[in-house]
């Protein structure tokens, strides 16, 4: 069952992308296109790129070399789209808080620079195939894209968790799906790019990638299009005394000097 060109293999390649196109269509119809422009573009272009690759795999007239060229083209479209989507998530999580805007930008830029360096070092140590360079190059590009993407998303999750920022439901769904996809794909592409594994193992990793992507598309579908349950919570009373206490004590601190040894 877990072999290439089985029914499950066809299903996992086609179904999530058709569903993602459907999600994109519903986003458009529900007027969410302007709120999530990068995700809207990602949903359409990524799904089309994957379906085009599937068609190329199924058509006997397409040579192996051309298949990998189409794969490269898809990666070159999808890569920048994913980074635009990460930027959109970052802007919506931190953009509405003036007190965090500068720190947030500093953190994401620092994380970006560190991740690009890490990806470059990882790429330098990844074995290259001189005969099938187009294939190993594609694997390397996948590893690089997912390493940076997963790192940036983890940084956003760490910062939002530290500051206890509440992310609204659709945006959280987009970030969650993208993060799960990035982490799993990073692990599998790292193994594929560095491995030299047998074809049977390679096929299992392909299945893992495709199944994960399917789950992520379902997450996007659920968070973006299924309305949240409305619960009436009583307003949380704010503790006046504690704030006043901090205020007084911290004010006193400002007037004091710590001794210099």
């Amino acid at each position, binding site marked *: 069952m877990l072999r290439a060109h089985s029914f499950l293999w066809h299903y996992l390649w086609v179904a999530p992308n058709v569903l993602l196109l459907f999600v994109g269509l519903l986003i458009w119809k529900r007027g969410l296109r302007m709120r999530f422009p990068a995700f809207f573009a990602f949903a359409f272009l990524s799904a089309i790129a994957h379906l085009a690759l599937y068609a190329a795999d199924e058509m006997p007239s397409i040579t192996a070399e051309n298949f990998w060229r189409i794969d490269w083209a898809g990666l070159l479209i999808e890569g920048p789209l994913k980074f635009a989507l990460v930027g959109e998530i970052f802007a919506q999580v931190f953009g509405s808080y003036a*007190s965090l805007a500068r720190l947030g930008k500093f953190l994401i830029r620092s994380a970006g620079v560190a991740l690009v360096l890490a990806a470059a070092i990882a790429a330098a140590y990844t074995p290259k195939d001189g005969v099938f360079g187009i294939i190993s190059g594609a694997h390397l590009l996948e590893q690089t894209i997912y390493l940076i993407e997963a790192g940036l998303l983890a940084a956003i999750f760490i910062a939002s968790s*530290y500051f206890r920022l509440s992310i609204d439901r659709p945006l959280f769904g987009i970030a969650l799906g993208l993060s799960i996809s990035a982490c799993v794909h990073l692990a599998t592409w*790292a193994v594929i790019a560095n491995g030299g594994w047998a074809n049977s193992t390679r096929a299992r990793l392909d299945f893992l990638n495709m199944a994960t992507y399917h789950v992520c598309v379902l997450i996007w579908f659920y968070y973006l299009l299924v309305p949240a349950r409305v619960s009436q919570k009583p*307003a*949380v009373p*704010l503790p006046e005394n*504690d704030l006043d206490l901090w*205020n007084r004590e911290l*004010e006193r601190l400002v007037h004091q000097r710590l001794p*210099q040894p």
Partner: protein
Amino acid sequence: MTLAFILVIAAALALVFILSVTLSRNQQISRGVGLAAQIQPIDVEAFRTLVDPLEDDYLRRRLPAAEFRLVRRERLRATAAYVRTAGRNAAVLVSMGQSALSANDAQTVDAARQLVDNALLLRRNAALALIRIYVALAWPNSVMAVAPILHGYEQLSGSAMLLGRLQNPTAPVRISATL
């Protein structure tokens, strides 16, 4: 394969963290009400004594240099514990303010937004102050470690004063005239 192993471990750790954030977010949404109980009161007198410059001066005069460094480290550790508590309380206030953002009243929403912004500032500054305290812990004799800590406290104070004003708009705001 070593590289693949490192990347797989990193990806797994990131995934576990992200999933744990998702779980805790769901728990937070269902919990909501018990937030105020999470605020830990700060022992004002103890904190005041800890950061009293006269106390430190006295200790510096009375103790040998090596012993003073030990004592100062202890005092810095205790100060860090207080700043950590203030930071945790700020995080609780962020959650409380955010829960008020969905109110129908525009003024309440504005006040909640301000509260969230200031509590975030407090949380950020508490983190920065902690870093500076840890630097001072490593070099207790260094002169440079002192001024940034004081600056961090100034920022903490400013945001805390704004929070107090939001909580009780009728009370006069004590902008430090003696600064």
